Protein backbone atom coordinates (compact mmCIF):
# COMPACT_ATOMS: atom_id res chain seq x y z
CA UNK A 1 0.00 0.00 0.00
CA UNK A 2 1.00 3.60 -0.52
CA UNK A 3 2.19 5.50 2.45
CA UNK A 4 0.56 8.93 2.28
CA UNK A 5 3.75 10.56 3.46
CA UNK A 6 5.69 8.79 0.76
CA UNK A 7 3.29 9.97 -1.92
CA UNK A 8 3.82 13.62 -1.05
CA UNK A 9 7.55 13.09 -1.01
CA UNK A 10 7.37 11.80 -4.55
CA UNK A 11 5.30 14.82 -5.56
CA UNK A 12 7.80 17.13 -3.93
CA UNK A 13 10.65 15.34 -5.70
CA UNK A 14 9.00 15.78 -9.10
CA UNK A 15 8.34 19.46 -8.50
CA UNK A 16 11.93 19.88 -7.30
CA UNK A 17 13.13 18.72 -10.71
CA UNK A 18 11.23 21.62 -12.30
CA UNK A 19 12.63 24.04 -9.74
CA UNK A 20 16.12 22.80 -10.50
CA UNK A 21 15.53 23.37 -14.21
CA UNK A 22 14.54 26.99 -13.59
CA UNK A 23 17.65 27.49 -11.48
CA UNK A 24 19.79 25.81 -14.10
CA UNK A 25 18.35 28.00 -16.89
CA UNK A 26 19.43 31.05 -14.93
CA UNK A 27 22.83 29.56 -14.15
CA UNK A 28 23.32 28.47 -17.76
CA UNK A 29 22.67 32.02 -18.90
CA UNK A 30 25.19 33.48 -16.48
CA UNK A 31 27.80 30.74 -17.01
CA UNK A 32 27.58 30.80 -20.82
CA UNK A 33 28.08 34.56 -20.89
CA UNK A 34 30.97 34.41 -18.40
CA UNK A 35 32.62 31.44 -20.11
CA UNK A 36 32.59 32.88 -23.60
CA UNK A 37 33.60 36.37 -22.52
CA UNK A 38 36.51 35.03 -20.46
CA UNK A 39 39.14 35.18 -23.28
CA UNK A 40 38.36 38.85 -23.93
CA UNK A 41 38.33 39.66 -20.22
CA UNK A 42 41.82 38.27 -19.63
CA UNK A 43 43.18 39.70 -22.87
CA UNK A 44 41.88 43.26 -22.55
CA UNK A 45 41.27 43.59 -18.82
CA UNK A 46 39.58 46.75 -17.63
CA UNK A 47 40.91 48.76 -20.57
CA UNK A 48 37.99 47.23 -22.49
CA UNK A 49 35.78 49.76 -20.75
CA UNK A 50 37.60 52.92 -21.83
CA UNK A 51 39.18 52.08 -25.19
CA UNK A 52 37.35 53.82 -28.00
CA UNK A 53 38.48 51.72 -30.95
CA UNK A 54 36.47 48.75 -32.17
CA UNK A 55 38.51 47.13 -34.91
CA UNK A 56 37.85 43.43 -35.49
CA UNK A 57 40.55 42.84 -38.18
CA UNK A 58 43.26 44.24 -35.88
CA UNK A 59 41.68 42.60 -32.84
CA UNK A 60 41.46 45.88 -30.97
CA UNK A 61 38.29 46.02 -28.95
CA UNK A 62 37.00 48.72 -26.64
CA UNK A 63 33.46 49.27 -25.48
CA UNK A 64 33.52 52.99 -24.79
CA UNK A 65 31.68 54.11 -27.94
CA UNK A 66 28.86 51.66 -27.34
CA UNK A 67 28.68 52.30 -23.62
CA UNK A 68 28.29 56.02 -24.27
CA UNK A 69 25.71 55.31 -26.98
CA UNK A 70 23.72 52.99 -24.72
CA UNK A 71 23.68 55.31 -21.75
CA UNK A 72 22.92 58.39 -23.85
CA UNK A 73 19.87 56.74 -25.35
CA UNK A 74 18.80 55.38 -21.96
CA UNK A 75 19.10 58.68 -20.13
CA UNK A 76 17.43 60.66 -22.87
CA UNK A 77 14.60 58.13 -22.98
CA UNK A 78 14.18 58.41 -19.20
CA UNK A 79 14.31 62.19 -19.45
CA UNK A 80 11.46 62.15 -21.97
CA UNK A 81 9.48 59.39 -20.29
CA UNK A 82 9.56 60.41 -16.63
CA UNK A 83 7.47 63.63 -16.79
CA UNK A 84 4.85 61.99 -18.97
CA UNK A 85 4.76 58.86 -16.81
CA UNK A 86 4.24 61.01 -13.71
CA UNK A 87 1.43 62.82 -15.45
CA UNK A 88 -0.18 59.60 -16.63
CA UNK A 89 0.10 57.91 -13.24
CA UNK A 90 -1.33 60.94 -11.45
CA UNK A 91 -4.07 61.36 -14.03
CA UNK A 92 -5.15 57.71 -13.87
CA UNK A 93 -5.11 57.46 -10.09
CA UNK A 94 -6.22 60.92 -8.94
CA UNK A 95 -7.97 62.93 -11.62
CA UNK A 96 -9.52 60.46 -14.03
CA UNK A 97 -13.29 59.94 -13.68
CA UNK A 98 -13.87 56.46 -12.25
CA UNK A 99 -15.85 55.14 -15.19
CA UNK A 100 -12.98 55.96 -17.55
CA UNK A 101 -10.14 54.73 -15.37
CA UNK A 102 -10.53 51.09 -16.41
CA UNK A 103 -10.43 51.72 -20.15
CA UNK A 104 -7.61 54.27 -19.90
CA UNK A 105 -5.52 51.85 -17.86
CA UNK A 106 -6.13 49.19 -20.51
CA UNK A 107 -4.83 51.58 -23.17
CA UNK A 108 -1.58 52.09 -21.26
CA UNK A 109 -1.25 48.34 -20.69
CA UNK A 110 -1.88 47.71 -24.38
CA UNK A 111 1.07 49.95 -25.10
CA UNK A 112 3.24 47.66 -23.00
CA UNK A 113 2.10 44.74 -25.15
CA UNK A 114 3.08 46.28 -28.49
CA UNK A 115 6.20 44.44 -29.71
CA UNK A 116 9.44 46.33 -29.96
CA UNK A 117 9.71 45.68 -33.70
CA UNK A 118 6.32 47.33 -34.31
CA UNK A 119 7.54 50.36 -32.36
CA UNK A 120 10.60 50.28 -34.59
CA UNK A 121 8.49 50.27 -37.75
CA UNK A 122 6.46 53.16 -36.38
CA UNK A 123 9.68 55.02 -35.65
CA UNK A 124 11.04 54.44 -39.16
CA UNK A 125 7.84 55.46 -40.91
CA UNK A 126 6.64 58.26 -38.58
CA UNK A 127 9.24 59.64 -36.19
CA UNK A 128 12.18 59.63 -38.61
CA UNK A 129 10.38 61.54 -41.42
CA UNK A 130 8.98 63.98 -38.84
CA UNK A 131 12.46 64.63 -37.45
CA UNK A 132 13.95 64.91 -40.92
CA UNK A 133 11.33 67.24 -42.36
CA UNK A 134 10.29 69.41 -39.41
CA UNK A 135 12.42 69.14 -36.31
CA UNK A 136 15.93 69.03 -37.74
CA UNK A 137 15.53 71.94 -40.19
CA UNK A 138 14.03 73.97 -37.33
CA UNK A 139 16.94 73.26 -35.00
CA UNK A 140 19.40 73.74 -37.85
CA UNK A 141 18.04 77.21 -38.48
CA UNK A 142 17.66 78.51 -34.93
CA UNK A 143 19.93 76.49 -32.64
CA UNK A 144 22.91 75.60 -34.81
CA UNK A 145 25.24 77.52 -32.48
CA UNK A 146 24.53 75.30 -29.48
CA UNK A 147 26.95 72.33 -29.49
CA UNK A 148 24.55 69.67 -28.27
CA UNK A 149 21.83 70.67 -30.71
CA UNK A 150 23.87 70.90 -33.91
CA UNK A 151 22.43 69.01 -36.85
CA UNK A 152 25.29 67.31 -38.66
CA UNK A 153 23.44 65.26 -41.23
CA UNK A 154 19.79 65.88 -41.80
CA UNK A 155 18.74 62.23 -42.02
CA UNK A 156 16.30 61.79 -39.17
CA UNK A 157 17.93 58.62 -37.88
CA UNK A 158 20.02 58.98 -34.75
CA UNK A 159 20.12 59.29 -30.99
CA UNK A 160 17.01 61.44 -30.79
CA UNK A 161 14.81 59.14 -32.90
CA UNK A 162 15.89 56.11 -30.87
CA UNK A 163 15.39 57.91 -27.54
CA UNK A 164 11.90 59.10 -28.42
CA UNK A 165 10.73 55.62 -29.36
CA UNK A 166 12.43 53.95 -26.37
CA UNK A 167 10.80 56.60 -24.16
CA UNK A 168 7.37 55.53 -25.42
CA UNK A 169 8.32 51.90 -24.78
CA UNK A 170 9.27 52.42 -21.13
CA UNK A 171 6.40 54.83 -20.50
CA UNK A 172 3.88 52.08 -19.61
CA UNK A 173 6.22 50.54 -17.02
CA UNK A 174 6.93 53.75 -15.18
CA UNK A 175 3.40 55.10 -15.39
CA UNK A 176 1.68 51.94 -14.25
CA UNK A 177 4.08 51.56 -11.34
CA UNK A 178 3.50 55.23 -10.48
CA UNK A 179 -0.22 54.53 -10.55
CA UNK A 180 0.15 51.44 -8.35
CA UNK A 181 2.30 53.33 -5.87
CA UNK A 182 -0.24 56.15 -5.68
CA UNK A 183 -2.98 53.57 -5.23
CA UNK A 184 -1.15 52.15 -2.22
CA UNK A 185 -1.54 55.43 -0.30
CA UNK A 186 -4.06 54.89 2.53
CA UNK A 187 -7.37 56.40 1.53
CA UNK A 188 -7.92 57.79 5.01
CA UNK A 189 -4.84 60.01 4.73
CA UNK A 190 -6.03 61.48 1.45
CA UNK A 191 -9.60 61.92 2.67
CA UNK A 192 -8.36 63.63 5.79
CA UNK A 193 -6.44 66.18 3.77
CA UNK A 194 -9.39 66.73 1.42
CA UNK A 195 -11.68 67.27 4.38
CA UNK A 196 -9.36 69.98 5.68
CA UNK A 197 -9.94 71.90 2.48
CA UNK A 198 -6.89 70.80 0.53
CA UNK A 199 -7.21 70.68 -3.23
CA UNK A 200 -6.41 67.50 -5.18
CA UNK A 201 -3.05 69.02 -6.06
CA UNK A 202 -2.25 69.59 -2.37
CA UNK A 203 -3.16 65.99 -1.62
CA UNK A 204 -0.92 64.71 -4.40
CA UNK A 205 1.93 67.01 -3.43
CA UNK A 206 1.85 66.67 0.35
CA UNK A 207 0.18 63.33 1.06
CA UNK A 208 0.44 60.92 -1.87
CA UNK A 209 3.81 61.79 -3.33
CA UNK A 210 5.90 61.49 -0.15
CA UNK A 211 4.24 58.14 0.47
CA UNK A 212 4.53 56.84 -3.10
CA UNK A 213 7.88 58.31 -4.03
CA UNK A 214 9.89 55.17 -3.26
CA UNK A 215 7.67 53.08 -5.49
CA UNK A 216 8.07 55.62 -8.27
CA UNK A 217 11.85 55.43 -7.92
CA UNK A 218 11.51 51.66 -8.26
CA UNK A 219 9.50 52.13 -11.43
CA UNK A 220 12.09 54.47 -12.88
CA UNK A 221 14.85 51.97 -12.10
CA UNK A 222 12.94 49.18 -13.85
CA UNK A 223 12.33 51.50 -16.80
CA UNK A 224 16.07 52.09 -16.93
CA UNK A 225 16.59 48.32 -17.01
CA UNK A 226 14.22 47.96 -19.95
CA UNK A 227 15.75 50.85 -21.87
CA UNK A 228 19.33 49.57 -21.49
CA UNK A 229 18.50 46.24 -23.09
CA UNK A 230 16.20 47.57 -25.78
CA UNK A 231 17.40 46.15 -29.07
CA UNK A 232 15.26 45.97 -32.15
CA UNK A 233 13.68 49.41 -32.13
CA UNK A 234 17.12 50.93 -31.50
CA UNK A 235 18.76 48.95 -34.32
CA UNK A 236 16.18 50.34 -36.71
CA UNK A 237 16.49 53.96 -35.57
CA UNK A 238 19.91 54.86 -34.24
CA UNK A 239 21.80 54.90 -37.51
CA UNK A 240 24.33 52.22 -36.49
CA UNK A 241 27.63 54.06 -36.84
CA UNK A 242 30.35 53.51 -34.30
CA UNK A 243 30.89 57.15 -33.39
CA UNK A 244 30.56 58.88 -30.06
CA UNK A 245 27.48 61.08 -30.44
CA UNK A 246 28.31 64.79 -30.29
CA UNK A 247 24.79 66.12 -30.45
CA UNK A 248 21.19 65.10 -30.01
CA UNK A 249 20.83 64.58 -33.74
CA UNK A 250 23.98 62.59 -34.48
CA UNK A 251 23.97 58.91 -35.24
CA UNK A 252 25.39 56.40 -32.81
CA UNK A 253 25.54 52.78 -31.79
CA UNK A 254 24.43 50.96 -28.66
CA UNK A 255 25.66 47.70 -27.16
CA UNK A 256 22.46 45.88 -27.96
CA UNK A 257 22.28 47.14 -31.54
CA UNK A 258 25.92 46.20 -32.16
CA UNK A 259 25.20 42.70 -30.89
CA UNK A 260 22.09 42.41 -33.06
CA UNK A 261 23.95 43.57 -36.16
CA UNK A 262 27.30 41.84 -35.89
CA UNK A 263 27.16 38.89 -33.51
CA UNK A 264 26.44 36.35 -36.25
CA UNK A 265 29.57 37.49 -38.15
CA UNK A 266 31.63 37.70 -34.99
CA UNK A 267 31.40 34.01 -34.13
CA UNK A 268 33.86 33.20 -36.93
CA UNK A 269 36.74 34.62 -34.91
CA UNK A 270 36.92 33.47 -31.27
CA UNK A 271 38.37 36.69 -29.86
CA UNK A 272 35.89 38.87 -31.78
CA UNK A 273 33.01 36.75 -30.51
CA UNK A 274 34.45 36.89 -27.03
CA UNK A 275 34.60 40.68 -27.13
CA UNK A 276 30.96 40.79 -28.22
CA UNK A 277 29.96 38.41 -25.44
CA UNK A 278 31.77 40.69 -23.02
CA UNK A 279 29.47 43.49 -24.19
CA UNK A 280 26.57 41.17 -23.46
CA UNK A 281 28.12 40.56 -20.03
CA UNK A 282 27.98 44.31 -19.38
CA UNK A 283 24.30 44.35 -20.35
CA UNK A 284 23.63 41.30 -18.18
CA UNK A 285 25.42 42.77 -15.16
CA UNK A 286 23.60 46.10 -15.50
CA UNK A 287 20.23 44.39 -15.84
CA UNK A 288 20.83 42.11 -12.83
CA UNK A 289 21.93 44.97 -10.58
CA UNK A 290 19.11 47.23 -11.75
CA UNK A 291 16.49 44.55 -11.20
CA UNK A 292 17.71 43.59 -7.74
CA UNK A 293 17.63 47.23 -6.63
CA UNK A 294 14.33 48.07 -8.32
CA UNK A 295 12.62 44.94 -7.06
CA UNK A 296 13.67 45.53 -3.47
CA UNK A 297 12.30 49.06 -3.55
CA UNK A 298 9.06 47.96 -5.19
CA UNK A 299 8.45 45.06 -2.83
CA UNK A 300 8.54 47.45 0.10
CA UNK A 301 5.99 49.78 -1.46
CA UNK A 302 3.51 47.77 -3.50
CA UNK A 303 4.30 44.33 -2.15
CA UNK A 304 4.78 41.25 -4.28
CA UNK A 305 1.91 42.20 -6.58
CA UNK A 306 3.03 41.71 -10.12
CA UNK A 307 2.71 44.44 -12.66
CA UNK A 308 1.85 43.30 -16.15
CA UNK A 309 3.68 46.12 -17.83
CA UNK A 310 6.97 44.71 -16.63
CA UNK A 311 6.94 42.02 -19.31
CA UNK A 312 7.71 42.57 -22.94
CA UNK A 313 10.53 44.00 -24.94
CA UNK A 314 12.64 42.44 -27.57
Amino acid at each position, binding site marked *: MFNLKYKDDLYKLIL*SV*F*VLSVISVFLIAVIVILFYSYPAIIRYGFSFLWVKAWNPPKEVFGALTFLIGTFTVTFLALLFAIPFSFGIGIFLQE*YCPLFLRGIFTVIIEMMA*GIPSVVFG*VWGVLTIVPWLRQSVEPFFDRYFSGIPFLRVEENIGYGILAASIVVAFMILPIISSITKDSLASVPKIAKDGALAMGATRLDVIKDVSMPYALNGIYGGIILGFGRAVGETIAVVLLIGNQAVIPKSLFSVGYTI*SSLLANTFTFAVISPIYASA*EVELALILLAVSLIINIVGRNILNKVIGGRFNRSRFGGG
Partner: protein
Amino acid sequence: MTELANIEKNDGSMPVFPVDRGYIKRKKFYNNIAVFFAVTAFVIGSFPVFHIIYEAVAVGHKYLNWRFISTLPTGFPIGASGGILNAITGDVYLIIIASILAVPIGIGTGLYLSLFGKKRTNSVLRLLNELMIGIPSVVWGIVGFYVFSTNAGLGFHFGFSALAGGFTLGFIMTPIITLLTEQAVSQIPAGYIEGALAMGATKWQATKSVIIKAALGGIFTGILLGIMNIVGQTAPLLFTNYYNTGMPTGVTGPGGAVGDMAMLIFIYIHEPSRILHIKAEAASVVLLLFIFVLDLGLRLISYLTKRFLS
Protein backbone atom coordinates in the same frame (compact mmCIF):
# COMPACT_ATOMS: atom_id res chain seq x y z
CA MET B 1 -23.44 82.65 19.65
CA THR B 2 -22.73 85.95 21.29
CA GLU B 3 -19.12 85.73 20.23
CA LEU B 4 -20.11 85.19 16.62
CA ALA B 5 -22.38 88.17 16.75
CA ASN B 6 -19.62 90.27 18.15
CA ILE B 7 -17.21 89.55 15.30
CA GLU B 8 -18.56 92.51 13.40
CA LYS B 9 -17.49 94.90 16.13
CA ASN B 10 -14.34 93.17 17.25
CA ASP B 11 -12.26 95.41 19.44
CA GLY B 12 -9.13 93.37 18.92
CA SER B 13 -9.48 91.06 21.90
CA MET B 14 -10.68 88.12 19.80
CA PRO B 15 -8.66 86.29 17.13
CA VAL B 16 -9.84 86.77 13.59
CA PHE B 17 -9.38 84.13 10.91
CA PRO B 18 -9.43 85.94 7.64
CA VAL B 19 -10.87 84.13 4.66
CA ASP B 20 -8.53 84.98 1.83
CA ARG B 21 -10.65 84.52 -1.27
CA GLY B 22 -7.65 85.12 -3.47
CA TYR B 23 -5.75 82.30 -1.78
CA ILE B 24 -8.52 79.81 -2.45
CA LYS B 25 -8.82 80.96 -6.02
CA ARG B 26 -5.09 80.60 -6.48
CA LYS B 27 -5.16 77.07 -5.04
CA LYS B 28 -7.95 76.08 -7.38
CA PHE B 29 -6.13 77.63 -10.29
CA TYR B 30 -2.96 75.63 -9.54
CA ASN B 31 -5.06 72.51 -9.27
CA ASN B 32 -6.57 73.19 -12.66
CA ILE B 33 -3.12 73.64 -14.14
CA ALA B 34 -2.13 70.27 -12.68
CA VAL B 35 -5.24 68.69 -14.23
CA PHE B 36 -4.31 70.22 -17.55
CA PHE B 37 -0.77 68.82 -17.41
CA ALA B 38 -1.95 65.37 -16.30
CA VAL B 39 -4.49 65.19 -19.14
CA THR B 40 -1.92 66.42 -21.66
CA ALA B 41 0.59 63.83 -20.46
CA PHE B 42 -2.00 61.11 -20.89
CA VAL B 43 -3.05 62.30 -24.33
CA ILE B 44 0.53 62.56 -25.62
CA GLY B 45 1.63 59.40 -23.83
CA SER B 46 -1.14 57.26 -25.22
CA PHE B 47 -0.97 58.82 -28.67
CA PRO B 48 1.43 56.16 -30.08
CA VAL B 49 -1.01 53.34 -29.33
CA PHE B 50 -3.62 54.91 -31.57
CA HIS B 51 -1.18 56.19 -34.12
CA ILE B 52 0.65 52.87 -34.45
CA ILE B 53 -2.62 51.05 -35.07
CA TYR B 54 -3.97 53.78 -37.34
CA GLU B 55 -0.81 53.98 -39.43
CA ALA B 56 -0.39 50.22 -39.70
CA VAL B 57 -3.94 49.88 -40.97
CA ALA B 58 -3.76 52.96 -43.20
CA VAL B 59 -0.53 51.89 -44.87
CA GLY B 60 -1.02 48.15 -44.89
CA HIS B 61 -4.77 47.81 -45.52
CA LYS B 62 -4.21 46.94 -49.17
CA TYR B 63 -2.74 43.59 -48.21
CA LEU B 64 -5.11 42.73 -45.41
CA ASN B 65 -6.84 39.87 -47.16
CA TRP B 66 -6.92 36.12 -47.10
CA ARG B 67 -4.32 35.77 -49.83
CA PHE B 68 -1.76 37.66 -47.74
CA ILE B 69 -2.22 35.28 -44.86
CA SER B 70 -2.35 32.07 -46.87
CA THR B 71 0.54 32.37 -49.34
CA LEU B 72 4.31 32.16 -49.05
CA PRO B 73 6.46 35.19 -49.92
CA THR B 74 7.78 35.22 -53.48
CA GLY B 75 9.15 37.73 -55.98
CA PHE B 76 12.19 39.97 -55.82
CA PRO B 77 13.17 41.25 -53.31
CA ILE B 78 11.73 38.23 -51.61
CA GLY B 79 8.32 39.14 -50.26
CA ALA B 80 7.49 41.65 -53.00
CA SER B 81 4.62 39.40 -53.93
CA GLY B 82 2.95 36.71 -51.91
CA GLY B 83 2.12 36.75 -48.25
CA ILE B 84 3.27 35.82 -44.80
CA LEU B 85 2.29 32.18 -44.44
CA ASN B 86 5.89 31.24 -43.58
CA ALA B 87 5.83 33.58 -40.59
CA ILE B 88 2.48 32.36 -39.32
CA THR B 89 3.56 28.72 -39.59
CA GLY B 90 6.85 29.58 -37.93
CA ASP B 91 5.16 31.33 -35.03
CA VAL B 92 2.99 28.27 -34.45
CA TYR B 93 6.16 26.10 -34.36
CA LEU B 94 7.93 28.49 -32.02
CA ILE B 95 4.99 28.88 -29.65
CA ILE B 96 4.52 25.11 -29.41
CA ILE B 97 8.23 24.42 -28.86
CA ALA B 98 8.59 27.22 -26.31
CA SER B 99 5.49 26.02 -24.47
CA ILE B 100 6.77 22.43 -24.33
CA LEU B 101 9.75 23.73 -22.41
CA ALA B 102 8.19 26.53 -20.40
CA VAL B 103 4.71 25.33 -19.38
CA PRO B 104 5.68 22.25 -17.33
CA ILE B 105 8.71 23.91 -15.76
CA GLY B 106 6.79 27.10 -15.01
CA ILE B 107 3.74 25.42 -13.52
CA GLY B 108 5.86 22.91 -11.58
CA THR B 109 8.04 25.60 -10.08
CA GLY B 110 5.05 27.78 -9.28
CA LEU B 111 3.36 24.88 -7.47
CA TYR B 112 6.55 24.06 -5.57
CA LEU B 113 6.84 27.68 -4.47
CA SER B 114 3.33 27.77 -3.08
CA LEU B 115 3.10 24.23 -1.65
CA PHE B 116 6.51 23.19 -0.38
CA GLY B 117 8.69 26.30 -0.40
CA LYS B 118 10.20 27.55 2.82
CA LYS B 119 10.26 31.30 3.22
CA ARG B 120 13.93 31.57 2.34
CA THR B 121 13.92 29.33 -0.75
CA ASN B 122 10.82 31.13 -1.94
CA SER B 123 12.36 34.56 -1.77
CA VAL B 124 15.50 33.34 -3.54
CA LEU B 125 13.50 31.61 -6.29
CA ARG B 126 11.22 34.58 -6.77
CA LEU B 127 14.21 36.87 -7.06
CA LEU B 128 15.75 34.51 -9.62
CA ASN B 129 12.61 34.54 -11.73
CA GLU B 130 12.27 38.30 -11.65
CA LEU B 131 15.91 38.64 -12.60
CA MET B 132 15.33 36.31 -15.54
CA ILE B 133 12.46 38.51 -16.68
CA GLY B 134 14.80 41.48 -16.51
CA ILE B 135 17.60 39.97 -18.62
CA PRO B 136 17.63 41.74 -22.03
CA SER B 137 16.36 39.56 -24.83
CA VAL B 138 19.50 40.05 -26.91
CA VAL B 139 21.48 38.43 -24.08
CA TRP B 140 19.07 35.48 -24.15
CA GLY B 141 19.76 35.29 -27.87
CA ILE B 142 23.48 34.91 -27.28
CA VAL B 143 22.89 32.33 -24.56
CA GLY B 144 20.57 30.45 -26.91
CA PHE B 145 23.16 30.58 -29.67
CA TYR B 146 25.87 29.00 -27.53
CA VAL B 147 23.56 26.46 -25.93
CA PHE B 148 21.50 25.35 -28.93
CA SER B 149 22.67 26.72 -32.26
CA THR B 150 26.44 26.69 -32.38
CA ASN B 151 28.13 23.93 -34.31
CA ALA B 152 31.42 24.21 -32.46
CA GLY B 153 32.24 23.41 -28.87
CA LEU B 154 29.68 22.43 -26.28
CA GLY B 155 25.95 22.68 -26.81
CA PHE B 156 23.18 20.85 -28.60
CA HIS B 157 24.26 21.73 -32.17
CA PHE B 158 20.72 22.25 -33.43
CA GLY B 159 21.91 24.85 -35.94
CA PHE B 160 19.73 27.84 -36.77
CA SER B 161 16.43 26.07 -36.30
CA ALA B 162 12.96 26.16 -34.83
CA LEU B 163 14.08 24.00 -31.92
CA ALA B 164 16.91 26.34 -30.98
CA GLY B 165 14.75 29.46 -31.37
CA GLY B 166 11.78 27.90 -29.60
CA PHE B 167 13.78 26.73 -26.61
CA THR B 168 15.43 30.13 -26.30
CA LEU B 169 11.99 31.72 -26.28
CA GLY B 170 11.01 29.07 -23.72
CA PHE B 171 13.76 30.40 -21.44
CA ILE B 172 12.10 33.81 -21.66
CA MET B 173 8.62 32.37 -21.09
CA THR B 174 9.44 30.17 -18.07
CA PRO B 175 9.76 32.85 -15.36
CA ILE B 176 6.54 34.53 -16.48
CA ILE B 177 4.55 31.30 -16.11
CA THR B 178 6.29 30.52 -12.80
CA LEU B 179 5.44 33.85 -11.22
CA LEU B 180 1.85 33.87 -12.44
CA THR B 181 1.22 30.28 -11.35
CA GLU B 182 2.53 31.10 -7.90
CA GLN B 183 0.39 34.22 -7.79
CA ALA B 184 -2.67 32.27 -8.93
CA VAL B 185 -2.24 29.62 -6.22
CA SER B 186 -1.66 32.27 -3.57
CA GLN B 187 -4.92 33.94 -4.55
CA ILE B 188 -7.00 30.81 -3.87
CA PRO B 189 -8.90 31.32 -0.61
CA ALA B 190 -6.80 29.61 2.08
CA GLY B 191 -9.77 27.56 3.26
CA TYR B 192 -9.92 25.59 0.01
CA ILE B 193 -6.46 24.09 0.32
CA GLU B 194 -6.47 23.84 4.10
CA GLY B 195 -9.86 22.17 3.96
CA ALA B 196 -8.60 19.54 1.57
CA LEU B 197 -5.48 18.92 3.64
CA ALA B 198 -7.51 18.76 6.84
CA MET B 199 -9.66 16.02 5.30
CA GLY B 200 -6.51 13.93 5.02
CA ALA B 201 -5.73 14.64 1.37
CA THR B 202 -2.10 14.63 0.40
CA LYS B 203 -0.74 17.72 -1.25
CA TRP B 204 -0.84 15.88 -4.56
CA GLN B 205 -4.53 15.06 -4.09
CA ALA B 206 -5.19 18.65 -3.05
CA THR B 207 -3.40 19.85 -6.18
CA LYS B 208 -5.26 17.45 -8.43
CA SER B 209 -8.75 18.10 -7.14
CA VAL B 210 -8.68 21.64 -5.73
CA ILE B 211 -5.69 23.77 -6.60
CA ILE B 212 -5.52 23.09 -10.32
CA LYS B 213 -9.20 23.84 -10.73
CA ALA B 214 -9.16 27.01 -8.67
CA ALA B 215 -5.90 28.31 -10.13
CA LEU B 216 -6.61 27.33 -13.74
CA GLY B 217 -7.57 30.86 -14.71
CA GLY B 218 -4.41 32.34 -13.29
CA ILE B 219 -2.23 29.65 -14.87
CA PHE B 220 -3.82 30.25 -18.27
CA THR B 221 -3.24 33.96 -17.83
CA GLY B 222 0.43 33.18 -17.29
CA ILE B 223 0.63 31.01 -20.41
CA LEU B 224 -1.14 33.60 -22.56
CA LEU B 225 1.08 36.38 -21.20
CA GLY B 226 4.10 34.26 -21.99
CA ILE B 227 2.92 33.66 -25.56
CA MET B 228 2.08 37.34 -25.95
CA ASN B 229 5.58 38.16 -24.88
CA ILE B 230 7.41 35.73 -27.14
CA VAL B 231 5.54 36.42 -30.38
CA GLY B 232 6.91 39.95 -30.28
CA GLN B 233 10.50 38.87 -29.68
CA THR B 234 12.98 39.41 -32.47
CA ALA B 235 16.40 39.73 -30.84
CA PRO B 236 16.67 36.17 -29.46
CA LEU B 237 15.74 34.74 -32.85
CA LEU B 238 18.48 36.67 -34.65
CA PHE B 239 21.09 34.24 -33.34
CA THR B 240 19.09 31.06 -32.91
CA ASN B 241 16.64 30.77 -35.75
CA TYR B 242 16.89 33.80 -38.01
CA TYR B 243 14.36 33.44 -40.79
CA ASN B 244 13.05 31.19 -43.50
CA THR B 245 11.11 32.37 -46.52
CA GLY B 246 9.68 28.92 -47.09
CA MET B 247 8.28 26.13 -44.99
CA PRO B 248 10.59 24.31 -42.59
CA THR B 249 11.49 20.74 -43.49
CA GLY B 250 12.33 19.75 -39.95
CA VAL B 251 12.95 21.31 -36.57
CA THR B 252 16.73 21.00 -36.38
CA GLY B 253 19.71 21.39 -38.67
CA PRO B 254 19.55 22.72 -42.23
CA GLY B 255 15.97 23.39 -43.26
CA GLY B 256 14.95 23.59 -39.63
CA ALA B 257 14.69 27.36 -39.51
CA VAL B 258 11.21 28.83 -39.55
CA GLY B 259 9.82 32.22 -40.49
CA ASP B 260 8.59 34.49 -37.74
CA MET B 261 6.27 37.48 -37.73
CA ALA B 262 8.50 39.80 -35.76
CA MET B 263 11.54 38.73 -37.76
CA LEU B 264 9.66 39.21 -41.04
CA ILE B 265 8.66 42.73 -40.06
CA PHE B 266 12.24 43.48 -39.00
CA ILE B 267 13.72 42.20 -42.26
CA TYR B 268 11.11 43.92 -44.46
CA ILE B 269 11.52 47.30 -42.78
CA HIS B 270 15.28 47.01 -43.24
CA GLU B 271 14.95 46.70 -47.02
CA PRO B 272 14.97 49.90 -49.07
CA SER B 273 11.76 48.96 -50.83
CA ARG B 274 8.45 50.73 -50.44
CA ILE B 275 6.41 47.63 -51.14
CA LEU B 276 8.19 45.70 -48.38
CA HIS B 277 7.59 48.59 -45.96
CA ILE B 278 3.90 48.41 -46.77
CA LYS B 279 3.97 44.66 -46.24
CA ALA B 280 5.77 45.15 -42.94
CA GLU B 281 2.92 47.39 -41.82
CA ALA B 282 0.34 44.87 -42.99
CA ALA B 283 2.18 42.14 -41.07
CA SER B 284 2.25 44.46 -38.03
CA VAL B 285 -1.53 44.64 -38.19
CA VAL B 286 -1.74 40.84 -38.14
CA LEU B 287 0.75 40.61 -35.26
CA LEU B 288 -1.00 43.33 -33.26
CA LEU B 289 -4.36 41.71 -33.88
CA PHE B 290 -3.03 38.40 -32.53
CA ILE B 291 -1.57 40.11 -29.47
CA PHE B 292 -4.73 42.09 -28.75
CA VAL B 293 -6.88 38.96 -29.09
CA LEU B 294 -4.63 37.20 -26.56
CA ASP B 295 -4.86 40.29 -24.34
CA LEU B 296 -8.65 40.24 -24.56
CA GLY B 297 -8.64 36.52 -23.78
CA LEU B 298 -6.58 36.88 -20.65
CA ARG B 299 -8.63 39.82 -19.45
CA LEU B 300 -11.75 37.72 -19.92
CA ILE B 301 -10.18 34.83 -18.02
CA SER B 302 -9.14 36.97 -15.08
CA TYR B 303 -12.57 38.60 -15.01
CA LEU B 304 -14.32 35.22 -14.97
CA THR B 305 -11.91 33.84 -12.36
CA LYS B 306 -12.55 36.78 -10.08
CA ARG B 307 -16.26 36.41 -10.56
CA PHE B 308 -16.50 32.69 -9.85
CA LEU B 309 -13.80 32.29 -7.24
CA SER B 310 -15.02 34.79 -4.69
